[in-house]
């Protein structure tokens, strides 16, 4: 499947970039963060190459349009994604941010890939976009273990693939209550 092979390729690219950076310093540095962001920008640019015939770029949405995914498929895929992200987050909590650059990078990859075929279903799209908010800026670098735990415990609720409006609202409110990512300023100790 095309999507699977793209994910595998991205994972290979990610590990090469991240492992080189991690091994050299053993500490998370601004270079690591910049590298992740830079790699993300390069891949997004690749995905959104301008169409020669029009002035607008082709987004992954445009690429995915016309593919109709059944709600069962989306539910099943959502379930798999959530389980994988929860596992990565649990590993991140256990090992600390410095030792989890690969896990964090994999989470970003999965979100980027998954959003491409969630665009039709608003509730799933909003949930994934809320998680993207945590990982698309640099707030993830300052997350404390209790906050990481809070995030995976909340995301775990969606593991069965059933994503309801009320539960997504609750998720948004729990991020807010626990000062996770979307507001500026320092988090509580």
């Amino acid at each position, binding site marked *: 499947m095309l999507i699977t092979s793209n994910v595998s390729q991205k994972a290979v690219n990610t590990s090469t970039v991240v492992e080189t950076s991690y091994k050299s310093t053993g500490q998370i540095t601004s270079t690591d963060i910049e590298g992740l962001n830079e790699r993300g920008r390069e891949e997004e640019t690749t995905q*959104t190459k301008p169409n020669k015939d029009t002035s607008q770029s082709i987004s992954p949405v445009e690429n995915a349009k016309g593919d109709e995914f059944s709600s069962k498929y989306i539910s099943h895929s959502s379930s798999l994604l959530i389980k994988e992200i929860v596992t990565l987050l649990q590993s991140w909590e256990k090992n600390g941010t410095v030792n989890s650059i690969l896990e964090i990078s994999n989470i970003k990859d999965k979100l980027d890939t998954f959003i491409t075929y969630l665009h039709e279903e608003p509730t799933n799209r909003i949930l994934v976009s809320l998680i993207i908010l945590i990982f698309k*800026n640099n707030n993830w670098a300052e997350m404390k273990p209790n906050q990481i735990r809070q995030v995976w415990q909340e995301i775990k609720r969606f593991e069965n693939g059933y994503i309801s409006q009320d539960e997504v609202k609750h998720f948004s409110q729990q991020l807010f209550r626990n000062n996770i990512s979307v507001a500026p300023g320092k988090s509580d100790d």
Partner: protein
Amino acid sequence: MTKKRKKKKPLIKRDKYLLDTSLQIERLYAQDTEKEVRRLIQRGDIYSSYFVLYEFKAGLIQHIIEFYFVVKVSQDISLAKAYWANNFSQRGSKYIHILESLIFKNLDSISTKDTYTYLLVIEATIYHMLCNFYTDLKGLVGQFKDLEVSNFNLDSSDNYADFMALCERNKFVKLKVFFERNMDSLKKLIENEDLENATKYKKIYNGLVEIQNNLNKADTHNISKAVGDAVIAIDTPSDYTIAGLDASFNLLCKCINKTFIALPHSKEITGLRKSVAQAWKQEVAQKKL
């Protein structure tokens, strides 16, 4: 043998606080303001009003959705921002800065060429703002339960176009019926000399006088927009304390025998102003040396 009756514990009456619009907006992006709200929750129950919800949606949310469409149409984030800066009011620009303070910690984090992701992030942020308007609130109160804008369901970008059309049809709240029901409060506000003479309340006071002279004026755009704070004060039930950042409520509440508690603006944000001024002065001094 007689059974002992269990003594019922007396119900502890908790204070009720009504969060005004400025507070509901600032708590979203300033953590120390949210901490102040949490302190209130320790003392009592927090509420807001349907009218505050209207101002929140018709003000902040509407502007951000409009910006969403500008980005979507232009497919160029920097062009959209330049257009926004040139064509919208100061308040409109302020709302987009609030949006970005919620999205970005580091401006370099999202490529300005990636409009697709930027639009997703705006959508998620709007959703996050709307959800967290209600966080920890016991409920909404007031006489404006039927406002269409307040009740409109904005769960995703699928509804944005309909919401904008609704806002276009409802550019202001008609207040004639409200003031007919609250003539006593209107009279008290107008008869207060402090309110009449205070420069910072001029717009509100003049608007109220116009309404008293001709009730139909309450159904006009400019007057309705001018007296918003007075409406919140009058609309708040008398056993509630209004909690806000705007000191103008102090006098308004005093006139109509209601209570107000002023919470401080975010120190992190206000303190930054001082730090910036100090920083450039130090640089200038160092260069002279």
